[in-house]
């Protein structure tokens, strides 16, 4: 059975990030037996048992996408989470529509304090639309940092940011040896938070992003007490191994939704990915001024 060739995105439509053409075709080849089975089922039907490796990869992919989204929505740089372990889940592949994944996974704190071994638990439903980024995500996580503590830490971070000298003379964070100075940690956490939005938007069932390095930061003075800063991150995409520079502009205040604007550079192709988010992932909302 012929694997389907993915249709190219129409010019002007939102591109779906770096195009891993060869791995994509390869993965479609792997999907062939699955495709054949799923075609005879209705989209809602779980379908035939699928290759275990493929299931595992999709569950991991979904868990990561869900976490990027969760971190962005939580908008709390002191409560960032990373994936600990995928516990269970199921993926349904519909060749016409995309990929639906239910997944349960454990998380740990991005910035664990001494002696902290907390594992949070999340469950998510992720829908990867065919050839389109910005997977639709519904995710809930158990709380593992007490709300008051989180608010205090966010506020402390906010204060640290406000006290930083401008212009910030920073080469890169971490430095080339993986070191992050304690005084620069708040910048890194906030940058990670903003990057979570970008990585969520760019993640597909095939592409997976990591934050490699922060290469420039500029903080702007504001009239309204918000943290307003511009920075460049280098994202690492695993399947193509590409390093993607993205300019990100974020506005944050503790307890308020995050505002992010970004522009990523596609190194290989002339297409570029960019996006804007005004605080809500579901529908654009007007943010009141605080």
């Amino acid at each position, binding site marked *: 059975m012929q694997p389907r060739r993915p249709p190219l995105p129409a010019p002007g439509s939102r591109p779906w990030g770096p195009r891993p*053409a*060869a*791995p994509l*075709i*390869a*993965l479609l*080849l*792997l999907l062939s037996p699955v495709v054949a089975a799923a075609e005879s089922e209705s989209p809602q039907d779980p379908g035939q048992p699928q*290759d275990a*490796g*493929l299931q595992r*990869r999709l569950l991991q992919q979904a868990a990561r996408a869900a976490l990027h989204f969760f971190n962005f929505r939580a908008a709390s740089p002191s409560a960032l989470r*990373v*994936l600990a372990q995928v516990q269970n889940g199921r993926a349904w592949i519909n060749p016409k529509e995309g990929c639906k994944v239910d997944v349960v996974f454990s998380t740990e704190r*991005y910035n664990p304090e001494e002696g902290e071994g907390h594992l949070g638990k999340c469950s998510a439903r992720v829908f990867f639309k065919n050839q389109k980024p910005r997977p639709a995500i519904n995710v809930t996580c158990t709380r593992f940092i007490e709300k008051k503590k989180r608010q205090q830490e966010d506020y402390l971070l906010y204060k640290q940011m406000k006290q930083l000298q401008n212009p910030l003379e920073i080469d*890169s964070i*971490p430095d*080339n*040896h*993986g*070191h992050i100075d304690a005084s620069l940690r708040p910048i890194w956490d906030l940058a990670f938070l903003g990057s979570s939005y970008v990585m969520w938007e760019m993640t597909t069932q095939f592409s997976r992003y*990591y*934050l*490699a*390095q922060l290469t420039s930061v500029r903080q702007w003075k504001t009239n309204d007490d918000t943290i307003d800063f511009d920075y460049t991150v*280098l994202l*690492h995409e*695993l*399947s*193509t*191994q*590409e*390093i993607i520079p993205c300019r990100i502009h974020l506005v944050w205040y503790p307890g308020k939704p995050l505002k992010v604007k970004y522009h990523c550079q596609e*190194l*290989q192709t002339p297409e570029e990915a960019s996006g804007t988010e005004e605080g809500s992932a579901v529908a654009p909302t007007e943010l009141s001024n605080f």
Partner: protein
Amino acid sequence: MRWILFIGALIGSSICSREKFFGDQVFRINVRNGDEISKLSQLVNSNNLKLNVWKSPSTFNRPVDVLVPSVSLQPVKSFLASQGLEYEVTIENLQIYHEMDNIASDFPDLASRVKIGHSFENRPMYVLKFSTEEGVQRPAIWLNAGIHSREWISQATAIWTARKIASDYQRDPAITSILEKMDIFLLPVANPDGYVYTQTQNRLWRKTRSLNPGSPCVGTDPNRNWNASFAGMGASDNPCSEVYHGTYANSEVEVKSVVDFIQKHGNFKCFIDLHSYSQLLMYPYGYTAKKASDAEELDKLARRAAKALASVSGTEYQVGPTCTTVYPASGSSIDWAYDNGIKFAFTFELRDTGTYGFLLPANQIIPTAEETWLGLKTIMEHVRDNLY
């Protein structure tokens, strides 16, 4: 003198463990008179800067070569400038080669440094050969590292492992019995041009530095350049891609050097390639989803190795064939090795799983090397007991 202040600043700042070898430079300093020689001697003798004289002056007007560790670069430069001493930076980071030389001279009956070729930019390619019997082409193990230059934990783990092999011989029964039966060849920097580039220009450079005619983009992915389904799926024909396979198989002199050496030797039984990151232990194939004929044995062995690795610090590795564990990849080193009769072919993707990625902090080097060592030993012991 001003330089006393510089040393004071150094004492105050934290100096990382000397297990990290990157960023060191060799300064060639022109000394013109006795006064300058004595100033330089004072600088060199100050313990805190940890300078290492490679070539002392015998007369004036001959240069002194001094190895300056990266943490001391700034104070030394400032000192030289303040004293009006002329200098040039000669070779970027020779520290790994220097350490290889040290190991060979510290353990002359076991270890020797062998040149197997050179890179595109004409840097030497050195392997360390560990052998307890000369003159015989024993069954051998190849440990490959640093083929992707930005994966610094790979080169670091390799050079740590080199010293570990040498110092544990005749102390640890496992490595002793392995070396009584087999030779070990260790290539810590399989991509020297890329490695220098990551230290001087772009920390995240992956490929070689060979030029691509007709393209502004430099470099080929050396782990897509081997003759195993070359230019198949999981590689790119675009020179600007990070997984560009090159113009033809073994087009990269760095790859060809290894291939020629291994083929000429003719008795390799095991090939292990160290990469980062993701914490995976994989076996062939990358170029196809079809199972390798020895997949079951390799899978069992890999699981035991991953378990041994985890026993040190709890670091969890996933195990499986390359294609379905990470992604399809054609032209890879271990696929070539396997298809050329080297049954025990494995890729390690070392720490971590994305938190720091390529920029793994220096304080994780030794823990990573120590746990990886147990994984490597598990594999090597099995090879020793299952020679074919």
